[in-house]
């Protein structure tokens, strides 16, 4: 009896620092964000306005532009999953030197998205690699400047995003493939199934959990990890063409000094990622 009580007490004491840190620096700010979203707030003084801040925010075109940009970027998700899937299947064939290739493929994962953004900026720039390639294959009078045009900058950002996700997602799929029982494929082959048929009927269903997890991680990254790329590549521009929700929060809060509206935008982002997060928790939970 006392032993049980002592063990519980020890449990509380051990867990307390983690609880305190999470409550103080994640929990309380969520509550504050809700409060401040109803106020006019410049960081020092806040005045209560009420629910009209929300109706006002939804009339702001910048919010809709940012949401639209995030929505359009979602179109890159199939590529951010499909390409790594192909690469993982390639690696899984265990061609000579596949371990070296694996290390090379994952190497960009270690680099900051700030650095990758810098390189991407050079790639898409007017005097960058992309134009060199275009000229080299014969279109010497065609030049692109994707980051300079509202209609194309978001595409360039999407391509960069796909590149940055390749390493992580390939790693996930490769782990999934490693847990696949090779005798299953072998049996199917003996039964006369072709490569494509084996992939569709055995490999893909086996990978479904990994694909779901990769999907959720990719979408969350899309909503909360693009800041570095945008900051160095476009600064949100031209205009608001590459401003996503997270960048709009930063821009509204720190460039315009409108802390209240930024807090409100933060809550919208919180709800979006919350929905995606619930899906992920269910995926993890369904496995335990």
């Amino acid at each position, binding site marked *: 009896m006392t032993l049980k009580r002592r*063990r519980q*007490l*020890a*449990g*509380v*004491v*051990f*867990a307390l*620092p*983690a*609880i305190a840190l*999470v409550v*103080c*620096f*994640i*929990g309380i700010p969520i509550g504050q964000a809700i409060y401040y979203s109803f106020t006019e707030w410049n960081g020092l003084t806040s005045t209560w306005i009420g629910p009209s801040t929300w109706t006002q925010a939804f009339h702001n075109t910048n919010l809709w532009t940012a949401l639209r940009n995030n929505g359009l970027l979602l179109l890159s998700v199939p590529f951010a999953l499909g390409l790594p899937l192909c690469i993982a299947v*390639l690696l899984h064939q265990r*061609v*000579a030197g*596949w371990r070296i*290739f694996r*290390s*090379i493929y*994952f*190497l960009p*994962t*270690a*680099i*900051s*998205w*700030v*650095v*990758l953004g*810098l*390189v991407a900026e050079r*790639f898409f720039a007017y005097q960058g690699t992309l134009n060199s390639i275009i000229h080299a294959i014969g279109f010497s009078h065609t030049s692109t400047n994707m980051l300079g045009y509202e209609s194309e900058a978001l595409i360039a950002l999407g391509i960069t995003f796909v590149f940055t996700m390749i390493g992580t997602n390939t790693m996930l799929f490769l*782990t999934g493939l490693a*847990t696949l029982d090779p005798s299953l494929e072998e049996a199917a*082959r*003996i039964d*006369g199934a072709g490569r494509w048929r084996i992939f569709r009927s055995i490999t893909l269903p086996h990978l479904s*959990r990994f694909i779901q997890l990769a999907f959720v991680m990719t979408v*969350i990254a899309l909503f909360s990890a693009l800041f*570095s790329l945008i900051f*160095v590549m476009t600064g949100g521009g031209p205009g608001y063409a590459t401003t996503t*929700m997270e960048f709009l929060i930063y821009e509204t*809060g*720190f460039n315009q000094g409108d802390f209240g509206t930024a807090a409100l935008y*933060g*809550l919208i*982002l*919180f709800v979006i*990622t*919350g929905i995606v*997060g619930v899906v*992920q*928790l269910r*995926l*993890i939970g369904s*496995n335990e």
Partner: protein
Amino acid sequence: MTTLLTPPTESPTPNPTPPVKKPRRVGRWVLFGAMIVVAIVMLYPFWVMIITSLKSESQFLSGGGFSWLSWSSLTSVIPIGQEVLSSTIVCSASILIILCVGLPAGFAFAKLRFRMSTVVFLVIVSAMMVPLQAILMPEFVNVTRLHLTGGYLGAIIVYASLGTPFSVFLFTTYFRGVPDELIEAGIVDGLGYFGALWRLVLPIAVPAIATVTVLQFIQIWDDLLVGLLFIQNTSERPITVGLAVLAAGRTTSIPQLMAGSLISALPAMLVYLGFQRYLVKGLTMGIDR
């Protein structure tokens, strides 16, 4: 009949339609070619950084040439030493807190269950899903009011709080796999709970500690937003922030930016290459077993 003599791994089928040897070898070469192409694409950033950093500003603009100028004058443009030091301080302090807080909590949630511990655990784990941007404004004002943005402390505490949910999750999952008897025995032996934590649990947890350390190191070293906002003195900037600010300013010479990028990428790459398996383990935690 000859098919029976070939080893089963080479030709598994008596099925005559795919002629066994030749296409397979061709297939291997196609495969190898595809892998080379992917490797070129993935190595592209490194190639750009190296080639560009080996040009002077004018050589970069005109296209040709080679020079060490960007490297030799690098420190006059980017305070590399100071920035790497800042990154190192922020990284190590944050990771130390994340470990010191996460390990006992994970142990508690797995082995020393108390009332409501499951609920508390779930709440902490769901905090993993909260992106900093969602709470950025209140967080910034709170940390500023606590007068922590002057030095490294503000950034450290924010990184530590953001990393804690993941480390609690990872340690809890890890300790669930350790048999209860092992810990019971230690406590009965008179170690006490703190003694057991220090002498029994810590040594067992080394792989989990390594996983948390590697993942958080790469995450924090590569991060921009926290360092940008929560470290106010420009002289205390971490390297990633320093590079991003220079790049956004559009006035620094590109070759020098690339040289700085290369230096900033080096530590994370070395950690990654050295501890690759821990990275994979942490990433797929909870799904592969």
